[in-house]
């Protein structure tokens, strides 16, 4: 009876408040080594297959990465100019500066799961590295999700496809706003788009920045199906995430940077993980 009451109390505390946040973090800390043991066979397999990769393939990949790096550096220069231009224009228009610099940390994915109950990732950066709940996680293509729990050395990321996840977005082409909700199994649903809206298949959805949790302007999903059925005033829109939710090995954690911080980059550890502000 006591165990029964404890279970019900835990459910109520977890559902209606954040009272159990530290308890969940403690439990995550306990199961973190178990997750690592469980992921070990796959890690060994990947390590073994990588070690036997043809040297020509590695050289080719190295060349491709160098070219990509060059292009990205050139784009970064353009971006710096554009940022200055925007600041000048904002000053002319008399608006306050809205471009916020993001602090970025690179993390490795240590565990991921796509099951009928939930879709999440575990990453190897935690509260000791300044990671907090609600920080945004992206890969090279778009937003993957947000941090929901942290332990000192790892964090758990709720993916945008999880049914409990919602993110405010806008259609990149028309700026029409809506809410993107996870529906499981690598799909999402765009809600609150009126039937009169001019959305098309292939339209890109980007984060709108409303709500203040996700930064604005990052690609989130591509519209793959539009249905106009029934009496509902809204379209039934399905979208697929742009980020490679289950193929990425490394992710970026975005957080608000300290306004006083200067542009800097520091090598944080021997694994090549990088913190950039």
């Amino acid at each position, binding site marked *: 009876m006591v165990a*029964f009451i404890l279970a019900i109390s835990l459910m109520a505390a977890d559902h209606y408040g954040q009272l159990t946040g530290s308890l969940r973090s403690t439990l995550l800390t306990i*199961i973190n080594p178990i997750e690592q043991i469980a992921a070990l066979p796959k890690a060994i397999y990947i390590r073994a297959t990588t070690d036997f990769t043809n040297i020509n393939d590695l050289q080719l990949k190295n060349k491709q990465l160098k070219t990509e790096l060059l292009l990205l550096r050139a784009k970064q220069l353009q971006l710096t100019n554009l940022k200055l231009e925007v600041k000048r224009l904002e000053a002319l228009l008399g608006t306050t500066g809205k471009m916020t610099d993001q602090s970025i940390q690179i993390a490795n994915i240590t565990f991921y799961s796509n*099951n*009928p*109950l939930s879709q999440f990732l575990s990453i190897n950066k935690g509260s000791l590295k300044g990671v907090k709940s609600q920080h945004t996680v992206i890969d090279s293509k778009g937003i993957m999700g947000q941090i929901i729990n942290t332990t000192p050395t790892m964090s758990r990321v709720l993916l945008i496809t999880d*049914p409990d996840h919602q993110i405010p977005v806008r259609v990149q082409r028309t700026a029409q706003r809506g809410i993107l909700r996870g529906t499981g199994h690598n799909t999402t649903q765009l809600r609150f788009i009126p039937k009169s809206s001019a959305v098309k298949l292939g339209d890109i959805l980007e984060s709108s920045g409303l709500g203040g949790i996700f930064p604005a302007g990052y690609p989130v999903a591509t519209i793959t199906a539009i249905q106009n059925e029934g009496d509902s005033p809204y379209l039934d829109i399905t979208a697929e995430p742009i980020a490679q939710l289950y193929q990425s090995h490394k992710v970026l954690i975005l957080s608000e940077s300290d306004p006083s911080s200067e542009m800097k980059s520091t090598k944080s550890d021997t694994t090549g993980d990088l913190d950039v502000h």
Partner: protein
Amino acid sequence: MSTKSFHIHLSQVRWTIITAYFIAFILDTMMLLGYSTPILPPLTLLVLLYWSANFIDRTHLFTALLLGVLADTLYQTTLGAHALIYIILTFLMIRHRLRFRTYPLWQQAFSISLYMLVYQSLNYLFFSPVLDNSDFVPYWSMPAIGLIAWPFLSYFLGKFSHTAAHS
């Protein structure tokens, strides 16, 4: 098979029990890695049902609470929800474990498949899992896999506890 097992006292095989839970939890975690199919039964729950059926001097309800809370953390569900399901199933088992122990193995396996059906139904009620076309049949077929897994699990756990008790 189970009737002969259990002249062993729980304190004689405490570490065997803890090790069995630990291994079962690791295997459950491995099954969750990547794109996991809902056809596989939770081994931690099967092991819990086995120990609660065979060691009748304890209720195992706090173990059920603890394992359920760990399962909630693992599956990223509301804390206490899996714990409640585990407690309900353990309670059902301790209510009829004296009869359960007298069943032949095949009949025990059928009982366990019913437990797994209750587990899946409660899961469905509590968490509304997303079951697309490829998941619907595996999800509701899980009790059948529990039925197949039980004789093997029963054999191995019985053997390990005997070895541990007599070593």
